[in-house]
């Protein structure tokens, strides 16, 4: 969406040039229409709700405008939701915790996903398809079922604890389920493919003669990795990290099912506000602050990358 906004500056000049080619106009207009309909419009609606106040009615929020007199249109903008979201300790903690979980999970996915992607990218051709298949295959099962399966593995008398007890490594079951650890496990497991696939796409394009050149110039394999492979795979790392970080920060299902009372996350609070407390305006404000929190680093990264390319 950021990339397209840069392109829109020239849109009008282009449209003028293509005035007599309606086919092209449709072609170029369609994605904009799509964005308008499914991104901008919902955004406006959510923004509008966030400025309202909750009420027990249908819809469960007040209108922003009201005719008080024949000719007087009163506009009531309630900024209290935003003030609450920013000032309240609970929400602030939830935001910080969400960002923290996002950060740790992204690092976890990176640490596990990078070697996996590297192994697949350097595997013999006939193995690659099979290995990639193994990464993608879990997607064919419902996300919810896979998260539920982790409950069976992590619970007190679950697979993991029974296994460790049988080995004699522990004397009593570990309490993993309903802790932050379980959330990390679930998140890293679920989002690993989003890290592996872009990294694989990047690493499989790596020119192996560059590594030979590094070796020829006196680099041991490990240093060649640090000085050549790693910097060249930075775009893949970035893409994978964003694909993991952004959805994880707003993640609701995994902390709800695997997390405990301490795993306070924005996604979960959003859910509670919307469906339990029926406070749509507050939930909308939460959603918007979350969006702002995610868009700002994203834009910064884009800026940084384009500056990197310019040099």
């Amino acid at each position, binding site marked *: 969406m950021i990339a397209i906004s840069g392109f829109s500056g020239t849109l009008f000049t282009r449209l003028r040039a293509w005035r007599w080619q309606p086919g092209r106009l449709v072609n170029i207009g369609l994605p904009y229409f799509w964005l308008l309909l499914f991104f901008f419009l919902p955004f406006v609606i959510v923004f509008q709700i966030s400025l309202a106040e909750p009420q027990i009615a249908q819809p469960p929020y007040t209108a922003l405008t009201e005719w008080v007199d024949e000719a007087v249109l009163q506009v009531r903008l309630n900024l209290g939701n935003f003030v609450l979201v920013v000032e309240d300790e609970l929400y602030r903690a939830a935001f910080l915790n969400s960002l923290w979980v996002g950060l740790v999970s992204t690092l976890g996915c990176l640490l596990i996903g990078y070697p996996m992607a590297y192994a697949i990218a350097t595997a013999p051709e006939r193995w690659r398809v099979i290995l990639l298949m193994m990464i993608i295959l879990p997607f064919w099962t419902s996300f919810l079922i896979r998260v539920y399966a982790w409950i069976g593995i992590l619970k007190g008398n679950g697979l993991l604890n029974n296994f460790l007890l049988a080995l004699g490594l522990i004397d009593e079951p570990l309490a993993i389920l309903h802790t932050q650890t379980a959330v990390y496990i679930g998140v890293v497991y679920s989002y690993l493919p989003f890290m592996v696939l872009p990294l694989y796409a990047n690493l499989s394009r790596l020119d192996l*003669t560059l590594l*030979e*050149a*590094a*070796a*020829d*110039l*006196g680099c041991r394999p490990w240093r060649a990795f640090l*000085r050549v492979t790693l*910097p060249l795979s930075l775009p893949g790392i970035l893409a994978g990290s964003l694909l993991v970080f952004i959805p994880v920060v707003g993640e609701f299902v995994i902390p709800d099912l695997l997390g405990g009372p301490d795993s306070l996350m924005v996604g979960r609070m959003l859910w509670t506000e919307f469906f339990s407390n029926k406070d749509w305006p507050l939930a909308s404000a939460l959603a918007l602050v979350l969006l702002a929190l995610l868009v700002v680093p994203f834009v910064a990264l884009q800026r940084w990358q384009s500056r990197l390319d310019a040099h």
Partner: protein
Amino acid sequence: MARPEDREPGALEAWQDPRARPYVRIEGVTRLFGEVRALNDVSLDIYQGEFFSLLGGSGCGKSTLLRLLAGLDSPTRGRIWIDGVDVTDIPAYRRPVNMMFQSYALFPHMNVEANIEFGLRQEKMPRAERAERVGEMLDLLHIGDLRKRRPDQLSGGQRQRVALARSLAKHPKLLLLDEPLGALDKKLRTHTQFELVKLQERIGITFVTVTHDQEEAMTMSSRIAVMDAGQIIQVDTPGAIYEYPNSRMVASFIGSVNLFEGKVFGREDNDILVAGDDYLVMRLRCLQPLSLGTPVTVAVRPEKMRLCPECEGPGDNRVSGHVEDIAYLGNVSIYHVRVSPEQVVTLTLANMQPRTEQMLTWGQEVTMSWSPVCGVVLTE
């Protein structure tokens, strides 16, 4: 390539001197890739200061041999010495050898300077010394004003120079060049050939190049090893390889050549007499003892043939036919003359007259001759 100005007349070249110690010694090297014999029992000596070329078609094993020297691959059997040290088991990153890759393999995320500096950093050279060496390389290859550019901002010729600078920066004992001019266009290639030779003479580092382009090998090399099917067929100076090929393979790989099949039927002093097809009788200088009836191939270069009757000498060989094709190249013209239903002879004549006064036309009957010393007798 002979460089007369450097040498006393009559002085021995290193490879002719029995006391000279080879700088690179390859001994009985075999490399198997599964069932495929990429190199089959190859032995080769290369001397210090040489500009040595490995020449051959694709799949002949020349690149494999170069990679073995670099340490990027290791031989299945055999040993390799560089400057008296057995390097067979030394990994690439510890060999005193650098390579210029065919694709140049410049690091795309580093600018020219950082690329050149890369190898120096690995050997932990102090910063000041590094900067000095980089400056030296930038000057040597005239790329000083490109120092801050990244590889994708360079032209093909500029990249080639940067790659060369990077591989020379560590002052290697041996520089390996894999098709060094392969990615350049024809005009730049010719120019760069001479530059590369001059550079090598100036810095005195031993060069080993791989090429499939025989013209390139002829121009640049002190010696050439012609390779085929994982083996070295002939090692010699460009002149000797061209004038005295030791086999049909070498004769036809280097330049163009006319081959006549025949059998030895007599000897007169230093010459042998060969009976070819269609009652063709050839007299050739041959000191090799060959028994009567030995099947031989006679190789004659197109430019060694002359048109009769103009310059026929005593004892010259003659063959007649009619002109089938003419290729006008400006300085020379190439004529294809059909001498028998099975054989076309190629004849190269310098265009000493303007084109309008050309001597030969299509279909014309011609007789060509060549002297006994201009044909090479091949038994392999």
